[in-house]
């Protein structure tokens, strides 16, 4: 077997060094009945070519672009990944290292993570970002738990109904069973934004935190400043959740609008769609809250000669030191995805990221105009959006299915998560879509 170097001569020599006679002796202390039942009903191994062929076959049984043009977003966005990103994350030195426990031989990972934290903090407009969490949904759940740690007396947390439904469900799963933390949903108003009047009412008694999407699940840009203000006034922690982090290339930053804890999904920064993962949970907060933060942190320090270097730090928050009193149970995070995002953001750069976001916004508006003209779609909510928007059109589900036959994944049907929106689709457009692609979308959805 090409992955295992042992020759029979190696085995014999090693056994004899240990003083054993057979491989079975190595496991002789394991109960016999366990050994006996441990046969594996798994076919024999394949050579590399055959294994590759099987995977090519499975990959070929999925429909992807250009055969199936993808206008679905809803938490996972089709974006272009510059080739440099993938080249860097394929470097064996990055890909096959562990968490940098020995900093002197892990400066590559550590410095890159320090750069990642800097970029994420800047993007979210907050002082400190961690080294990543699993994804946007679990980052949201961690944000809620952190709010509870900061506000231990509060017994509720308010979560916008316009958060991505899966994110809301994950928060519920995380909270289930945690004494003294209920989860209430803030309804959305007719314009798709958080119903501020309802929120006002719900802020009494003060919850631990208020969680809103930015943009929300409908692609809509919430008035985050106003919500943060109301939340602060009630003595709670305002939390923003961004499922499409590219939005923050153009929108005002959560931190700048008064948000204290920001969670986001960073998939758009250099991760392929990959059927839902691995993605990248971004998480940032204010400096004063850093010791309540979940997840790893890299910090700058010096070596014995005074040279700059980087180490894992503030580990006393973490499970391997604090065990049941840790701020989170997370250990392995999404390190290589964080590296991909760092490379992506470095390539795009200050102006490039803004421009990319601007192109997304314009393309989405162009797509909307085509859907209006050609497919008779109407914008569902009269509110500003970024690169994704909800439209109402008759027989949305049937048309969506037909578009699929025509080679277009025409967004996602909103009725699945919001029965009241059965006739609506959520559609995104990004820099990967040409004018011709968007025209095809409109045609594919036409009556």
């Amino acid at each position: 077997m090409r992955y295992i170097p042992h020759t029979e001569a190696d085995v014999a020599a090693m056994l004899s060094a240990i003083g054993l006679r057979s491989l079975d002796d190595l496991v002789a202390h394991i109960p016999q009945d366990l050994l006996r039942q441990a046969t594996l009903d798994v076919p024999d191994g394949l050579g590399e070519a055959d294994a590759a062929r099987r995977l090519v076959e499975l990959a070929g049984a999925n429909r992807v672009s250009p055969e199936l043009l993808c206008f679905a977003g809803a938490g996972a966005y089709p974006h272009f990944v510059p080739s440099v990103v993938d080249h860097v994350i394929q470097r064996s030195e990055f890909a096959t290292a562990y968490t940098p426990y020995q900093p002197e031989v892990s400066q590559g990972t550590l410095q890159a993570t320090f750069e990642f934290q800097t970029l994420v903090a800047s993007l979210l407009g907050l002082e400190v970002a961690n080294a990543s969490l699993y994804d946007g949904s679990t980052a949201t759940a961690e944000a809620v738990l952190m709010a509870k740690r900061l506000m231990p007396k509060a017994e509720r947390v308010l979560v916008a109904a316009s958060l991505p439904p899966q994110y809301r469900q994950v928060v519920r799963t995380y909270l289930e069973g945690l004494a003294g933390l209920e989860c209430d949903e803030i309804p959305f108003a007719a314009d798709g934004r958080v119903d501020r009047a309802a929120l006002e009412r719900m802020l009494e008694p003060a919850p631990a935190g208020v969680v809103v999407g930015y943009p929300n699940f409908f692609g809509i840009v919430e008035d985050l400043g106003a919500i943060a203000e109301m939340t602060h006034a009630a003595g709670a922690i305002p939390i923003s959740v961004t499922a499409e982090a590219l939005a923050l290339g153009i929108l005002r930053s959560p931190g700048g609008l008064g948000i204290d804890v920001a969670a986001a999904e960073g998939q758009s920064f250099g991760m392929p769609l990959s059927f839902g993962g691995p993605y990248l949970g971004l998480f940032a907060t204010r400096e004063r809250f850093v010791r309540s933060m979940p997840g790893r942190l890299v910090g700058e320090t010096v070596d014995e000669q005074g040279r700059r270097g980087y180490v894992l730090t503030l580990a006393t928050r973490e499970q391997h030191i604090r065990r049941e009193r840790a701020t989170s149970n997370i250990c392995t995070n999404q390190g290589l995805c964080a590296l991909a995002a760092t490379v992506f953001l470095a390539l795009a750069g200050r102006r490039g990221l803004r421009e990319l976001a601007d192109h997304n916004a314009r393309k989405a508006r162009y797509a909307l105009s085509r859907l209006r003209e050609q497919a008779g779609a109407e914008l569902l909510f009269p509110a500003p959006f970024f690169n994704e928007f909800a439209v109402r059109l008759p027989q949305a589900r049937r048309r969506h299915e037909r578009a699929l036959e025509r080679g277009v994944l025409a967004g996602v049907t909103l009725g699945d998560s919001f029965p009241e929106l059965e006739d609506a689709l959520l559609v995104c457009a990004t820099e990967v879509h040409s004018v011709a692609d968007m025209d095809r979308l409109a045609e594919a959805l036409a009556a």
Partner: protein
Amino acid sequence: MTDPRPPRGPGLDEPVLFERGSPGRRGYTLPPLAESERSAGSVAPELCRDDLEDFPELSEMEVLRHFLRLSQWNYSAATNFYPLGSCTMKYNPVLNEKVARLAGFADLHPLTPPGAAQGALELMAELEGLLAEVSGMDAVSLQPAAGAHGELAGIKIVRAHHVSQGRPRRNVLIPQSAHGTNPASSALCGYQVVPVASNDEGMIDPAAVARLADGETAAIMVTNPNTLGLFERDIARVAATVHEKGGFVYLDGANMNALLGVAKPGHMGADVLQFNLHKTFSTPHGGGGPGAGPVAVKQVLAPYLPVPRIVHGDGGFTLSEDAPKSIGRIRAFYGNFGMLVRAYAYMISLGGDGMKRATRMAILNANYLRKQLEGVLELAYDSPCLHECVFSDSTLERLGIETLDLAKRLLDHGFYAPTIYFPLIVSGAIMIEPTESETRETLDEFAAAVHAIVAEAREDPGRVKSAPHRTRVSRLDEVRAARRPRLRWRRAAPS
């Protein structure tokens, strides 16, 4: 002029990104918009931010060069023997990287209707089957993103079942040698952690479990082989005790690399376990992740698995949310799919015969290395080990050096260090897991290095205590990092 430290990698030094570049440079350029797109409008100015403070501006080559240079400052499993105990730093096949990047996987949107994603779903269903088979469990969910996330799912499942029986119960029993994620995950599910002392063989004491287990015991979390690399001999008895009280046995499957084809957790009384695909099944650790931590259960717990579930029907594979007892969703979408592809590629490459051999060779390597080191380091426990072995610092202490010093000096020999100071029950623990990927020659070289360092400590302990000497930076001041945290780059104040 002296040349203090070597350039590690081709760059003498590489500043942080933010100290490179120049305003106006671009590493990623977009085609111009069509007029119809441009005139479609953008986000209203009052919603727009001013600037992306600190973001650099670099050419494509500057970015590439920066990260290539950084990469060379890492030791990694591909380039160095990386005997980190409990981490299973085995070979991460290049083929896995290639197949995970096939367009049919990489470009597949997670909300593609199942009819257009049959390949992905079939792969997942097959992988569930393979994991169930090798562990002797009945049902698997691939969703958890890492081991700890799998633990969380697993304990939530246990809790959901107890709740369905009336109440969640209060405690989870956890041996002191357990990994920190076990108590942390239990606490995150609202449980009290009840520590179980290890006996003087480094194993769970069944009597202690019998004393501690009661009607409030939701579960016991057992790592088997445990973090000392020892097979928990009394696992069946312990399981029976807990089962008797109506509790469940959670098996931390991080050490499955010692069990494939040797013993199945499902036969030991385990009710629920997580896999670490990034350990046993060769997906790369990525400098910290991503991983994948599928959770497997016995039939009785299957209804509680997270949604969605993959279902095979007449029309092929579909995703079902129809599971009223489920703990719900534990993350968006279906797991770290890209990692699942890699693990699947590994499992079909290895096959049943290969897995069995891999485990045996992993055990052989650990025992062989243990033998080579027995003379120079003190074994924490001398029961027969499986895939890893743990030494204490008692020999080192006598020489006036610490475990940390040995670890740092090993770096100078071109080896990553073992896991150190874990498990907590061993003084100055040195936990070594060679995996099956390494050759006898490498193990011999590593053993020789340990011998050389111990000899050196006798002659010149200062040299060992000030190690590493040949790495890009010398020992880093971790205390300073924690006292005055600098967690992001800041532009130097203008002077």
